[in-house]
């Protein structure tokens, strides 16, 4: 028996859909990335993102349903926030209306809860409680996950998200978008000793982050140098080192303060290989188990929304017919 949940993700620049079965697990998922659409602007253009979601969402769902020979589901989960309001509204309008059309419940999922729980989609699954580091283009947070639905944000970025800092730095250096992979590629050729950038907010207590000053540091350094390929790689390397070091220092501090024995990495920046290596070393030193979702579940996807939706469906947390998008929505309010 069990039940099937359709998950819909449209909070930023990825259109994601998935089907999750309460007993069989993830049945299937599909993703359309708008990265090429936004590349020439060096960042996500909200209006273009919303325009693309409304074109791509139903075709993705249609394909997924025909692959799985489904005509209906038991519930529809969609990302209700946080994110870009126009983009979120598309998923909410389609998701809530699908649910009404089928006369089944709808679930409004918190995007970051989706990310937090994405690691549960794969074996081995982490056990509660755990510390989660959420690092993406929109968020940088350390979260104490006591249980499903019990989240405490321990620290977060006071300005730019880590992924945003990657994008902006890439733009300064004349690299492509998205910035994360571009910088990681270039940093491999960089000399680690050429420059040293600050590790923001690591000398003061607390678990908050700040990445906007680092971007300014990159700009000043880059402008003061002879701008050749080697310097570009050296700056990329120094920047990546600074971000990774900062994230690792705060993770270590959070693990020490909470005494938690598991660390889960989530969000697009979590796909950065050198960050993974660094955090694995940290885990080994501190005897902490470190979990990484598959890169496809690190970035925005429908599977994590379907999974979080299934848990909330079981708890009968349904949305009314009056749907809404919550562009700013704290996880502490869950």
């Amino acid at each position, binding site marked *: 028996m069990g039940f099937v949940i359709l998950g819909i993700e449209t909070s930023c620049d990825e259109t994601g859909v998935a089907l999750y079965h309460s007993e069989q697990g993830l049945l299937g998922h599909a993703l359309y990335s708008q990265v090429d659409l936004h590349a020439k*602007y*060096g*960042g996500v*253009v*909200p*209006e*273009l993102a*919303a*325009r693309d979601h*409304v*074109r791509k*969402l*139903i*075709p993705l*769902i*249609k394909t997924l349903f025909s692959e799985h020979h489904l*005509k*209906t589901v038991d519930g529809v989960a969609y990302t209700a926030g946080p994110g870009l*309001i*126009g983009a979120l*509204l*598309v*998923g*909410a*309008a*389609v*998701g*809530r*209306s*699908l*649910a*009404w*059309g*089928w*006369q089944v419940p709808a679930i409004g999922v918190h995007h970051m809860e989706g990310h937090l729980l994405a690691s549960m989609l794969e074996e081995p699954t982490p056990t509660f409680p755990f510390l989660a580091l959420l690092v993406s283009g929109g968020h940088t947070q350390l979260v104490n996950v006591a249980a499903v639905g019990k989240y405490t944000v321990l620290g977060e970025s006071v300005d730019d998200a880590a992924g945003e800092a990657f994008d902006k730095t890439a733009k300064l250096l004349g690299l492509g978008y998205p910035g994360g992979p571009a910088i990681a590629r270039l940093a491999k050729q960089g000399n680690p000793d050429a420059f040293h950038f600050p590790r923001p907010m690591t000398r003061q207590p607390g678990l908050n982050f700040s990445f906007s000053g680092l971007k300014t540091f990159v700009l000043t350094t880059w402008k003061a140098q002879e701008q050749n390929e080697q310097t570009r790689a050296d700056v990329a390397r120094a920047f990546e080192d600074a971000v990774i070091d900062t994230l690792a220092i705060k993770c270590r501090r959070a693990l020490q303060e909470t005494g938690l024995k598991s660390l889960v990495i989530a969000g697009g920046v979590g796909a950065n290989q050198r960050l993974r290596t660094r955090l694995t070393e940290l885990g080994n030193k501190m005897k902490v188990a470190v979990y990484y979702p598959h890169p496809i579940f690190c970035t925005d996807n429908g599977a994590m929304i379907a999974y979080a939706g299934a848990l909330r469906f079981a708890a009968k947390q349904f949305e009314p*017919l*009056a*749907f*809404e*998008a919550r562009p700013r929505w704290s996880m502490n309010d869950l």
Partner: protein
Amino acid sequence: MKLLAIDTSTEACSCALYIDGEIQNRSVIAPRQHAALILPMADELLQAADLKPNQLDVLAFVRGPGSFTGLRITCGVAQGIAFAADIPVIPISSLATLAQAANIEYGAKNVLAAIDARMKEIYWGGYRLDNEGIMRCELDEIVCQPEKISLPTTGKWYGTGTGWTTYATQLSTIVGNLLHHYQGERYPQSHAMIPLALAAFKEGKIESAENALPVYLRNKVVNIARGNPPGIL
């Protein structure tokens, strides 16, 4: 024939249910409240008629032009209902709906519909009543500054829509002798979509759910220099 019509393209939010000649209708003026209102309205109409969504034959929606966000709400809702209920959709113009409403309300036969598009522009179109009592597009729908509107050559025309409030003086001066009368405080209303939708259905102008897409008319939305789009309507 059971047809549901929805519109959230402007400040108004409305929903109408047609069952074999009878129309029930819900409508409010409620800017930025559309997401909260549209499905409860539809649900109320269907419950009163003891219908389930999958008992509908077709769904008509306003495809634009209008508020970008409003259009995506209508289209998203139309896509969701139509896909789940496995029924086709019929795209209807907001401007044609205004024209049809002017016929229902005043017996207008020639209509110049204008919606305030912000940014000193209007959405503009001309419509003429055919022998079947259906408004047909006579002047192509465009987005332009009020002084750049296209004009009919003959006849007496009725002006309707919010463009006629914001730019009353400019538009009536430009239309001049061709203008019979105008009424600015008018919004698309889904009951006026019904005749248009029935005619389109008869002509086979139906689409599948994924083709319930907005017609924005305004497609320059990115300011390259700033990398940001202008505000939504």
